[in-house]
């Protein structure tokens, strides 16, 4: 029996084929302008977050998230040389808030999403792979979580746990795992019947090995895609909760909290309704830009990892 003709693409012997696949996908990715926009936005925010201690030196080094305020005047000041983006009521500097708020957003967003991802992966894998009673129980519990509107129950939970950013983070972790669980579980339900899983069982692989070697690597990417898109959504919810007064205290560098303090100043005095435009616009625009960047990045991640979109 002669040797088969060579495979479709010649591999370069130096690099591991896994990296080659990645390089190929990345190359294709960067042809999409939206990807570049998304990546630029996120990189910009990353820069802000990383460079925060240098571009906006904290006045109180032990707690940099407390915004500096020059004075106690309740009326916010418009952008000026001293405060380039203006100030909030009580003269908190908006620019400082935006920069350190970026760090805060990353911290919170990534913490929540990563925790959710972990819980979702475990529960989803167990539910999907083993099925039966365990599956039923997990899914019915997830249904209960879904039945109540997220914001409402988040508020209730935060109040129960005590107001503050930690509670918000904890509440969202508790409340958002069903999404990831469902996504993973549905992928696994399809995957379970693939022949290579059966082949692994016929080879004598244990269930654990099958889960880690076969099931998870093929199904976790959809969860990662959902996760990357969810970072933006999570930030929005945290901002909403902060705006409602359930998150951080006044003076904390959190975008939602910043808008919250301006509740009385959203509409200006009659005759000059837009006097305090910068109060809502600047933090709001920052939130919107951040969420947009993550959404675009999520799309890009999906293009890279979704097996259906591969060029096969």
């Amino acid at each position, binding site marked *: *029996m*002669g*040797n*088969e003709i*060579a*495979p*479709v*693409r010649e*591999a370069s012997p130096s690099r*591991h*084929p*896994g990296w080659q*696949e990645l390089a190929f996908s990345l190359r294709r990715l960067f042809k999409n302008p939206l990807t570049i926009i998304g990546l630029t936005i996120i990189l910009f925010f990353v820069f802000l977050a990383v460079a925060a201690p240098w571009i906006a030196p904290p006045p109180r080094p032990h707690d940099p998230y407390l915004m500096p305020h020059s004075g106690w005047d309740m009326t916010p000041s418009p952008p000026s040389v001293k405060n380039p983006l203006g100030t909030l009521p009580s003269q908190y500097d908006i620019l400082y808030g935006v920069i350190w708020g970026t760090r805060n957003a990353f911290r919170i967003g990534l913490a929540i999403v990563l925790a959710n991802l972990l819980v979702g992966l475990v529960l989803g894998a167990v539910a999907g792979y083993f099925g039966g009673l365990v599956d039923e129980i997990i899914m019915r519990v997830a249904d209960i979580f879904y039945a109540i509107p997220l914001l409402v129950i988040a508020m209730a939970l935060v109040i129960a746990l005590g107001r503050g950013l930690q509670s918000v983070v904890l509440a969202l972790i508790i409340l958002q795992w069903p999404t990831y669980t469902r996504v993973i579980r549905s992928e696994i339900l399809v995957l379970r019947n*693939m*022949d*290579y899983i*059966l*082949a*692994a*069982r*016929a*080879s*004598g*692989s*244990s269930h654990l*090995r099958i889960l880690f*070697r*076969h099931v998870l*690597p*093929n199904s976790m990417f959809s969860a990662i895609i959902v996760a990357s898109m969810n970072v933006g959504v999570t930030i929005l919810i945290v901002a909403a909760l902060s705006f409602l007064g359930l998150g951080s205290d006044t003076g904390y560098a959190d975008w939602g909290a910043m808008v919250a303090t301006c509740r009385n100043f959203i509409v200006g005095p009659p005759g000059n309704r837009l006097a305090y435009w910068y109060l809502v616009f600047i933090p709001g625009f920052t939130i919107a830009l951040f969420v947009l960047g993550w959404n675009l990045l999520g799309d890009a991640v999906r293009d890279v990892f979704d*097996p259906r979109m*591969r060029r*096969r």
Partner: protein
Amino acid sequence: MSDPLIDIRQLVKYYPVTGGVFRRHIADVKAVDGVDLKIERGECLGLVGESGCGKTTLGKTILRLHDATSGRVYFSQPAARIEEVEKMLASGRPEERRKAARQEVDVTAMNGRRLRELRRKMQIVFQDPSNSLNPRMLIKDIVAEPLVAQRMVKSREVESRVLELLGVVGMGAGHLKRYPHEFSGGQRQRIAIARALATSPEFVLMDEPTSALDVSVQAQILNLLKRLQRDFKLTYLFVTHHLLVVKYTSDRIAVMYLGKVVELAATPEMFRQPLHPYTKALLSAIPIPDPETGRERIILTGDVPNPVDPPRACRFHPRCRYAKDICREVEPRLEDAGQGHMVACHRWREI
């Protein structure tokens, strides 16, 4: 008469059908409904039938990829021992049954370590090579998996063993560190075969191994399978719906219909003188690549019935042109029509 490699006794596999809000068990899909079969050592037994006949389920149940509903499968056991166990079970007394279970010879009842050891001896090659290889694993890891899972070789010997296996199926070292999608269908199937041979099995279940491949590739794979059987003294159960392929590869052929074996014979005998009406219809329905045959085709009426609710008595009687009253009343058993040619039909002598 040598010991059969696999002895299947009254194997039954039902899939429960649930319905309603409370998921009550309302019916069963009777995929395999009482099959007795012996697979001899070193032979290639072809298993043919149409969709819904249970041939794939039978194969996978033998391999314990599905749990049987009832029945026994004996793998590589001396005939005497099998008879002993069967007698114990037939006696009906619970302590006899427990004694039989302790013998640990029944594949359907094995568990844990014994089952895992057994899996070294029984392997499977699947139909669709694009599904049977993990798309995110390298070829090296795919072929090595059975060895690693069974802890059969030391880690530094894995690669050389994998190379050896790939060489046997006609592939080379340059193919090790690649992903399945870089290969054609035929090549992927070769990889799947290499994986199946990794643990040096005695028995390989071929589940439609060439149905998803092109004609010219099919010929290559069939020749490869024949050669491997010869070189490694393997036993095959060749499941397929393509009768000419099974004629080329198999020594004996078993025909299944709706969960039961309706005819079993040596290949030349089966084609020369099919006895069961279903076999006759099946054979006449194969398209033959010869425009000059001018043979008479038996066109069956109706569709393949549903395995949830198979017809009473002889399962084939609604579509059989020779059906008589007895066919509607009494289920025919497999009888010996001479020289090991078994057929399950009341009227085989007259037709």
